[in-house]
Every structure is written in structure tokens, then in C-alpha cells.
């Protein structure tokens, strides 16, 4: 088969195609932003939840756990932990760490105050109410 294959054409298609698909991505992102309020539970973003998110971040929880399936895979999924365990268990669990059981995976003690514990629970409650298209498949996460 003979045919023409030029660098300039390949280059133009690269730039054109990239710009095209990036614009398409921007258009979908725009639509996503429009549609999010119905799903993202942002109506319940109280100052307490915001404070809880910051605790989540500054204790680097994502370094062991997953949240909505993203993070490390060393410790349980916490996107639905509020539903799985309830607020009291979560607080008691965080306070009881580390368990010190020989050979078991250990979670650090973060010395959170009662207020901070309430904040992280509020954040986990907010997270559990995000519409995640029924993920995870079951309560175990």
C-alpha cells in the first residue's frame, strides 16, 4: 500500500485533536459542576464538617484508609463508616488507638479533643451522605 504520511499533518492532528478533546472535557466538567449540588451533599457542608475535613487531612488519614475508594488500601474504607459503625463507636475507636495487639496493624493515637472528635464524625457523616451511585457494593466497604 502506498500513501502519504507527513510530519506536518501528524503534528496538526496532534494539536487539533488534543485541543478538541480537552474542550470536550471542559464542557463535561462544566456540566458536572452544574449537576453536582444534587449529589454532593454540599447543602450539609457545615463549619463543623469543614473543620472535620481539615482534621482528616492534617492527620493524613488517607495514608492508610480509603475514602470513597481512594487512598491507601491498608485500612478500612471510611466513606461509609458512619453507617457501618455509628458516631459513638467511631469516637471510642479513635480514642482507643493504638490497640497494641502484637503483630496487628496499628493506628496512631492522635490525641483529639472531644470537639475535634465531633468534627471528624460530622465529616464522616457528611461523606456517607454523598450520592456515590451505590458504591461500595456492601456495608463492609
Amino acid at each position, binding site marked *: 500500500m502506498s500513501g502519504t504520511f507527513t510530519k506536518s499533518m501528524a503534528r496538526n492532528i496532534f494539536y487539533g*485533536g488534543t485541543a478538541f478533546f480537552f474542550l470536550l472535557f471542559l464542557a463535561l466538567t462544566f456540566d458536572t459542576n452544574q449537576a453536582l449540588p444534587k449529589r454532593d451533599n454540599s447543602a450539609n457542608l457545615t463549619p463543623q464538617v469543614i473543620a472535620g475535613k481539615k482534621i482528616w487531612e492534617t492527620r493524613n488519614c488517607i*495514608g492508610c484508609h480509603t475514602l470513597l475508594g481512594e487512598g491507601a488500601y491498608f485500612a478500612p474504607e471510611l466513606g461509609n463508616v458512619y453507617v457501618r459503625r455509628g458516631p459513638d463507636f467511631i469516637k471510642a475507636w479513635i480514642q482507643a488507638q493504638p490497640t497494641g495487639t502484637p503483630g496487628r496493624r496499628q493506628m496512631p493515637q492522635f490525641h483529639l479533643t472531644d470537639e475535634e472528635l465531633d468534627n471528624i464524625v460530622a465529616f464522616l457523616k457528611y461523606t456517607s451522605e454523598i450520592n456515590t451511585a451505590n458504591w461500595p457494593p456492601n456495608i463492609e466497604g
Partner: protein
Amino acid sequence: MQYKSQAVAKPYFVAAIGLFVGQIVFGLIMGLQYVVGDFLFPALPFNVARMVHTNLLIVWLLFGFMGAAYYMVPEESETELYSPKLALAMFWVFLVAGALTIVGYLFVPYATLAQMTGNDILATMGREFLEQPLLTKIGIVVVALVFLFNISMTMLKGRKTAISMVLLLGLWGLAIFFLFSFYNPHNLVKDKYYWWWVVHLWVEGVWELILGALLAFVLIKVTGVDREVIEKWLYVIITLTLVTGIIGTGHHYYWIGAPEYWQWWGSVFSALEPIPFFAMTIFAFNMVNRRRREHPNKAATLWALGTGVMAFLGAGVWGFLHTLAPVNYYTHGSQITAAHGHMAFYGAYVMVVLTLISYAMPILRGRAANSPKAQVLEMWSFWLMTIAMVFITLFLTAAGILQVWLQRISDTPLGFMATQDQVSLFYWMREAAGVMFMIGLVVYIVSFFVKGDKVAEA
């Protein structure tokens, strides 16, 4: 070495390899913590080890990319680097900042580190891979901008080849998309949505431009095939990459609260994502088969071909395995993801940086290629590391399949930790493969110090 200023690449490569060793050491520690949970606790909790492991990976790859750019761009542009002094200064700034950050991770509690470094002014920390303190993030931007200024100025005064244009575009994209790491909205869904604009648009977007450019450069050098031919195939491959990869971002939006149409858009486009990787493999083998010269550096050719194959397997095949929404529903956030992540990063980015180091380092040390003895050792390290990575991936995949089955599919689902206990055998095997990888890495480093019969002068 054709241009004196290419020499600044050398410290970058040395630092990259040094940090690579650090990354693997922490990887081994984590692998052990998977089965001996309290290993090194509380001195080194898992989350700190993981942060060091992943951040070192990113930083050493960045060192590798920068070194590669400093080596390639003068040769491509046929002119000396705009400012070798600036390049060296940035090397030390980046190295010291990186080291300080790691020291901070290891010896200061993360929350304290956050407070010390201005996280209260602009909260950006504590998100996967973007754990760096604000100051470090700003430092990365400064280093990147100075680096890009240096490279862009060099290109502006010299010849502009397709390869260097693609490389530059990739590097600019890398810097631009990193800016999204400063955007951390309170809304978790938006946080996650734009977090992927750094992570996905890096690894399945602009980094692949860098990957393509580095591979094309080395292929031209070792095969002697016409630049015209290699460059037009480079364009075709990176077009396919971005056409599939940009919308392919959608495969991360299935279960994080984004609209459900992403399940379709993400599945359709990421189903096509293996194609560019396949094309790249075919391309690399094709060019080597049609080589017009026998380059004395056999090791570099092996790395180049390995990059094609392993990137296809890791990013293409293992990505495709769990990219379709109905499959991903069960595998999301499991060890399958870890399996894919390991092989894709190794196959695509680790190997391409090692390809360039393998090609450039002998020249930087004043010879066209290393002695046959050193090359044999280097090829041993290639096989040790690559086969070890294949095993790591296979064991993690097995662990992932079992995990998904026990925890998510079975009628009586086990809890997370109960499942982890069930799959611990695979974690032990993964750790053994990790040790093999470490041995490969040691052999790799030893190969730099092996003398032997001299090959032609550069």
C-alpha cells in the same frame, strides 16, 4: 557529549537513583507492615512510610525528567543550555527542599508539620500524593518555572525539533496541572474531582508526552532510523494517548459523587486507552528492527524496548482489567488498583527514566557505552527488577481478586481486616518479590562501578 552544558544532567540522574533507593527501602518496610502490622510502630506508622514511598517516587521521577531534559534539549536544539548555573542552582534547591520535606515527614508529627508550614493559611495537605507542605508545593512551582524558563530559552535560541517541542509541552503541562494541587475546596466531591486533574492528567496525560519524547530521542540515537519517521510516529502515538486519556479521566469519577454519565464516558474512552500503549510497543520494536546502526549501548536498547512492553502491560492491560464501570464497581479501591499502580508506574515512568539514564550516563562519563561487563550487569538488573515487578503485580492481583470476592461479592461478606488476614500469603509473596526488586536495584547501582574493557570514546 556534544555540548558542555549537558553535564548538568549528571547530578540530576545521580540524585534520581539515590532517591529511587530510598523509595524502594520504604516500599519494603510497608510491604512488611502489611503482614507484620506493628513493624516499626509507632516510630514509623504506615501512613508516614507510604507518604515517603510515593513522594520519593514522584520527586525522583521529576529529577529524572529534569535531568533528561537538560541532557536532551541542548543536543536537540544544537546549542548550549541557556544557563547551566541556574540549572545547578535549582538542582540544589530542589534536593535540599525535597530532603527537608522527607525529614519533616519522618520526624515531625504530620499535624504539627502542617501548622509549621502554613497549612492554616491555605490548606492543601493531607491528600493522597499531594501531602507536601505548602512551602514545598510553592518550592516545586518555583523550581519548575525556573527549569522551564531555562529549557524554553534554550529551545528558543536553537533548532526546534518535534521531539523537543513535545517534551516541552509535556513539561509545561506538568507544571500547569500541578497548580490544581493548590485548589482544595471544602466540598469533598469537588476536591476529589480536581485532585485528579493533577494526578490523572499527569500520569495519563502530560507525562506521557514526556515519556514519548524521551523514548523517541533514545530510539533515534540507538537505531539511527530517520528522525522524520520517528517523529511522525511520535505525533500519532501521543495523539492517540491524549484522545483517549483526557476523557479517560472519567474512569475516576464513577463513585466519588460525580454524575453517573461518567460511568459511560469513562468506560468508553478508557477502554481505548491500551491502544496508544500497544502502538508504542509496536513502534519501539519496529524501529529497533529497522535499525541502521549497531549502537554499542545494548543495555539502553533493552530498557527502551522494556519500557514499551511493560508500559503496555502495566498501564494498558492492567488498566483495562478494571477500568469498565461494572467491573470497577467491585474492584475500586482494592489491591487490584495497587497492582495496576505498581506496574504502570514502573513500566511507563521508572523504565523510561532508566532508559535515558542508561543511554546518557556513559556519555556523561566520557564514553559511548559502558564496558560489556558493566552492560551485562545492567541487563541482569533489568531482568531482576522487571521480573520482580511482574511478580509483585501478579501477587497483588491475586490478593485483589480474593479480597474483592471475600469482602464485596460473597453472600456473607467479610470485614476489611478479616479479609486482609485471608490474603496475607499473597502479601508475603509480594514482599519476597520486593526483596528481589531491591536486589535488582543494587545490581543496577553496582553496574555503574564496574570497569572492564573500554568501548569507543564518546
